[in-house]
């Protein structure tokens, strides 16, 4: 059985935001209002000459126990057998309970106005027809044809790695199994499938 996961190495993310741009174009997100399915935060850590800038990419964690799915009143949020959490925009009424439940701030609002603006912004290829509480899908349409998610494909520092946790020969599975890559907020019981390799230990 396939169990998709992503590992993000904070040591090699240079904050170029190419992942955000690639994702936006691939998934037609409402970037005109600053809403992205994946976002790279940056933060200055340290004092005086020891300050460094940390880039922190984040996205939906495709949890094994997703709170956004359990609170969804219409069943619009669902999980594929391969672990990818998706939204059926036709079923979604946009109550945003999922956004409230998500500990990773991974939901974005797509309104009626965004659907209209999307037609102008993305042109005739625009696919969205109804508003919804949108989210990352690990680009499952690309994964289905053997490609990687757009953000992984475009990452210049190879900070993002995508793989199958159930394949013991997959580098992603090995990094997770070794404990080098760790999930965010594991104590919440969401069992996320996006793992991070810490940069602060190396930087001291």
């Amino acid at each position, binding site marked *: 059985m396939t169990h998709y996961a992503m590992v993000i190495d904070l040591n090699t993310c240079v904050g170029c935001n190419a992942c955000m741009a690639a994702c936006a174009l691939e998934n037609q997100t409402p970037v005109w209002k600053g809403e992205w399915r994946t976002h790279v935060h940056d933060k200055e850590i340290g004092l005086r000459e020891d300050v460094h800038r940390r880039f922190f990419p984040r996205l939906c964690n495709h949890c094994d126990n997703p709170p956004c799915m359990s609170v969804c009143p219409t069943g619009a949020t669902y999980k594929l057998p391969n672990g990818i959490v998706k939204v059926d925009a036709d079923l979604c009424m946009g*109550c945003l309970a999922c956004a409230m439940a998500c500990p990773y701030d991974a939901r974005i609002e797509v309104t*009626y106005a965004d659907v209209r603006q999307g037609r102008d912004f993305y042109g005739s290829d625009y696919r969205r027809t109804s508003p919804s509480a949108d989210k990352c899908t690990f680009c499952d349409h690309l994964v289905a044809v053997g490609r990687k998610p757009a953000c992984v494909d475009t990452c210049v520092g190879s900070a993002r790695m995508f793989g199958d946790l159930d394949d013991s020969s997959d580098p992603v599975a090995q990094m997770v199994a070794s404990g080098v890559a760790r999930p965010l907020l594991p104590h919440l019981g969401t069992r996320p499938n996006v793992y991070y390799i810490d940069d602060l230990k190396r930087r001291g």
Partner: protein
Amino acid sequence: MDVTMTYHTQDIWTWWLALYLYFGGMGAAVLVVSFLTDMYIKPYPRLVLWGALSGIVMLSLGSMMLFGHLLHHVAVIHVLNPLILLRKPDAWIAWGTQFIVWMMVWGFLYAVPHIKDTKIAHRWQLTRKVWAWGTVVWLHDNCGRYAKLIGWLATINGIGVAVYTGLLLQSFPAVALWHNPGVPLLFTVSAFSTALAFLLVVLNLFNHWHEDQALRHFYERMDLILISAELVILFSFYQYMESGSESAVHSWVLLWGNMGWVIGFIGFGLVVPFMVELRGVLKGWSTRVPIVTASLLVLMGGYMLRYYFMYGGVYAYPW
């Protein structure tokens, strides 16, 4: 200080969601209290009519708040279908929507026999004709015959709505202020306290009859107990948040450092009405003004509780 964390409150569910929770909980509890009073304390058609009408209006107002803020209004049809509970038994909004819808249905049906006895029901020729229709006669007769069953169905749904308003917030695991078993308890107690306050206003201002004095005193005593329970629960929240997780501690700072919460809600929304009602229960008041004032303060406090709860929830993000 953890430099790798950032702390955020949310701007997704704000004052309007607080209104949804407030009107939902209070509206349901108003129906429950007025129907239980009619069934077990004394038959009281006017109270039933007031309770049913105001409860349904409150539930509708609250629901409109949520509906108005949906991103995709047409898709609400999925959650209005009762079969949604088979597909999504783990979603509290699905339960809450069904509780609210059926609460209004049973609430209306319980009031039907009493509506016929009002003057307004026979004022116009059209309404007199409607009451003579076969279906309406059948409905009227059966609602009267099965009044207790309908009353209990309304009561069960009403309690469901009141508890649901807390369970909804409890289902969000990232925020310590919300994700704990105290929230449904607090919101349920508050819902019934505000409902009693609302009915005390009705009984003192619009239905002030001498024979209801005992009922008013009973409501005052019940409200006093509920306010006491609310204060105890809030004290527990204070302790839980003060030494809790990062999310809880930040919520603690936001709430207990806010004069609106401390003085507005706890002071004027709970402590002052408690003192006024306690004086009323122990020694009585010579006028209606203190009890009406205390009730209005409880009503204000009920909304403030939910308002500050929505704004006080803190997400602790690890970036």
